[in-house]
């Protein structure tokens, strides 16, 4: 905390390192690398011994971090407790599902029956279904009561437009979108992308013609579908929620997990528009007065991304898929995929070039 004169120590150095690693670019890069490693080596990593060891190390690190007062302040805030729980539950259920998938995939390779086959599909409603549900209901209610008593929802003063909280955070389920607002125009991050997410999820059953993987866990038989979904869910949703919860402080500035949330800390805003890069830096001439001409390079770039992108993807990765699902389904799938990939691409452009908008027509409130 500021004002405390402390001698440097190895603990401080580790905290400093973790603070640096938690910056947006490194945090996301580590998360993506972690996901890729997990998906490539899922069979080894999901083995109970291995997963247990990794889990234990994570819990130890978490427990050790809880001794830092700044970190403790964040994780014990009533609003953030569910997200702390989510850290563990998402990890656990990912492991569980992939463990079953690993077992099934090995069984498939060896010609053995799947874990889900062989069992009698019919169960009695009473007691097998309803009794279990009732017990789960009672336990969940008890948990919620205990939670509400120990961590009651804060009843704060009436809303006052003159006194806004800083940071003003959305509820946890919208923190992913709020983080997207850093990189995208509000229309895109708040309206278009959420709409396309829902539309995309609805469209999946109509695009997916792979009959395998229904009713049993597997990864080998549905690698593209599961990887894409996990990228969208884990990286672009859960990780952003974690980021928005723990690593965004006053003025939506980045603060490492062990850093004090100083509301007066300055942050450099160095945003560049693509039209500045193209006309001034690259061509060395003044910006055109007509805004359409000014934004033409950006518009062409975006059009090229969406029109040539599917063709490039088909040539490189999706030849077989294109033959299987046809042009319309492939076109829809590739469009949604490209929109999804726009997020990390834009984030990388922001971190490297400080790029704000590729197309910035503020006259029409149209910014991409």
């Amino acid at each position, binding site marked *: 905390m500021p004002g405390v004169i402390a001698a*440097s120590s190895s603990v401080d150095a580790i905290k400093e390192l973790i603070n640096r690693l938690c910056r947006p670019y490194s945090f996301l890069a580590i998360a993506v690398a972690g996901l890729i490693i997990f998906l490539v080596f899922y069979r080894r990593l999901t083995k109970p011994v291995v997963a247990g060891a990794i889990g234990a190390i994570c819990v130890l690190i978490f427990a050790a971090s809880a001794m830092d007062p700044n970190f403790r302040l964040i994780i014990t805030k009533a609003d953030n407790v569910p997200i702390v729980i989510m850290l563990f539950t998402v990890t656990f259920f990912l492991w569980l599902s992939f463990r079953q998938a690993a077992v099934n995939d090995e069984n498939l390779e060896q010609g053995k029956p799947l874990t*889900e086959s062989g069992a009698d599909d019919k169960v009695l409603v009473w007691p097998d279904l309803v009794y279990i549900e009732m017990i789960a209901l009672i336990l969940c209610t008890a948990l919620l009561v205990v939670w509400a008593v120990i961590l009651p929802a804060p009843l704060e003063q009436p809303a006052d437009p003159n006194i806004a909280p800083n940071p003003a955070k959305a509820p946890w389920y919208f923190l992913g979108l709020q983080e997207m607002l850093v990189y995208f125009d509000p229309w895109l991050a708040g309206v278009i992308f959420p709409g396309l997410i829902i539309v995309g999820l609805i469209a999946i059953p109509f695009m997916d013609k792979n009959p395998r993987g229904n*009713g049993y866990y597997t990864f080998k038989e549905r690698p593209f579908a599961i990887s894409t979904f996990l990228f969208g869910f884990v990286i672009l949703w859960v990780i952003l929620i974690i980021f928005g919860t723990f690593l965004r402080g006053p003025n939506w500035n980045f603060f490492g997990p062990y850093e004090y949330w100083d509301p007066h*800390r300055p942050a*450099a*805003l160095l945003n560049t528009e693509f039209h500045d890069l193209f006309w001034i830096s690259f061509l060395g001439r*003044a910006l055109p007065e007509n805004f359409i001409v000014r934004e033409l390079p950006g518009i062409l770039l975006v059009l090229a991304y969406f029109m040539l992108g599917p063709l490039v993807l088909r040539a490189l990765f999706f030849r077989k898929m294109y033959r299987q699902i046809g042009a319309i389904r492939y076109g829809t799938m590739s469009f949604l995929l490209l929109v999804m990939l726009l997020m990390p691409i834009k984030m990388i452009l922001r971190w490297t070039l400080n790029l704000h908008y590729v197309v910035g027509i503020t006259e029409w409130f149209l910014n991409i």
Partner: protein
Amino acid sequence: MPIPEERLYHSRKLNIWFAISSVVMTVCLLWMIAADYIRPWKDYQEDYFLSKAALARLEYLTASRNDRQEAIAKAEQRLKDAKEYAAQTSAEERAELESELAHASLEFRKANDKWSRTAQPLDVTRDTYERTLANYGEDHPRTIKAHETVLREEAKADRLRVEKEKWEDQKKQLEARLRNLNGPVREAEKALRNLQMVAEEARKKDRQYRGLLPKAGWLASVPVVGAVINAPLFDFAAPKNTPARKQVNQLVLPEVRQQLNYLETYTTDRCTTCHIAIGDREFSKGRLAEKLEKSLPGINEALQDRGLDPYAYPEPPKTIDGDELALGEVTPFWGNLTHEDQDTYFDALLERVNDYLAQDGRPAIKLGQPTLAHPDLDLFVSVDSPHPMAKIGCTVCHEGNPQETDFVFAAHVPETHEEQKAWEEKHYVHRLGVPVVTFDTVAHYWDRPMHLKAHTEAGCAKCHSEITDIGRFRGERKGARLNLGRYLFTNVDVSIATT
């Protein structure tokens, strides 16, 4: 697990059912959007906007009259002469200055970008140094290193700042020299702009209220802007009070309380959704008559340009005192005319103007409920009156259902049976042949239906509870009917009244 082949239902039949139900659902959704979107109050607002556009057109015609055009032509000639003189005497110098200015502006932009990319992180670096200083002390290697970084970045920022300021100064000097060179031209331009502005503003207002694009082009007469800002599902997006934007207008009145059985709350009046012109002085008969009278010369010039016969001024009435009035100079004496003469003269003026507008392919100016200003705007409704609308609202005086935007639901009360019949035909909304609501139903269920015109002063007593505290306004005693009522009430002999 083997891929199952059997299905519980016949897929093809299900596909057909799905197709039919999807079509039905789509039609229902579109019908729902249409039913929600198509509202009578939008028509009233449309009438108001088109009337405003027509008035702007009349302003334009007045501002474009020949005498004004002559002044504009003279100003244009002065500007042309100034430009020619400037071109002859300093064309080369100007071209050189403009080229240098463009170069200097570009270099300044680049230098400014470079400087700001150093200056902003410098604030962060300074902050980091101060934190390190506070945490570790002055002699710690980290602090020393942070301090060195600050000094280094400050030196770099200073160098870049000097470069930026150099280009900025150069730019300012070139701009000053160009301004001096262009001085006479700029003055001539300013004079011309001032002359043209009235017509230009009127033309712009006309196009705005008709929902047209500001500039003429191949879409000049298509109400693109109006269609976009009023499009279903997207009509929330345009800023409030954009001309030609149809919106629910409401006044939130925290100081005007209403009792809703178990709740006492503030009032929200939405009357101005239909009565959109209630505070617009242009829509009071006197002001409108004045405007129409003044616009006739401009209209006549436009007709003459087309080779058509001009309109004659209507026959001027006599004042109440019997004085004769000159042709075309009636409206300055508006208050001295009888109501009948006012109506006759106004109708004649309006007929001529609407006839011209019809020739121009525009809808007529409408002045009549609800497109009508409140009487006596200096006493009621206007911002500087004792009863400003934003503070008092409408229903505190007139009663009715404040939050409704439907005519019948708003608890309008017909004066006579004939009026009720006419209103039923005009305003009832029928579903399957049955009106959704009737006047009788609303009168039954809404505790405070609107006052009849004769009873409007009853609303005054809510605030002017003594009645006698309704004072004079501009020398005239107000609330005469209410005061008479009070007098009768306090002086009537009860024994006689009950026999």
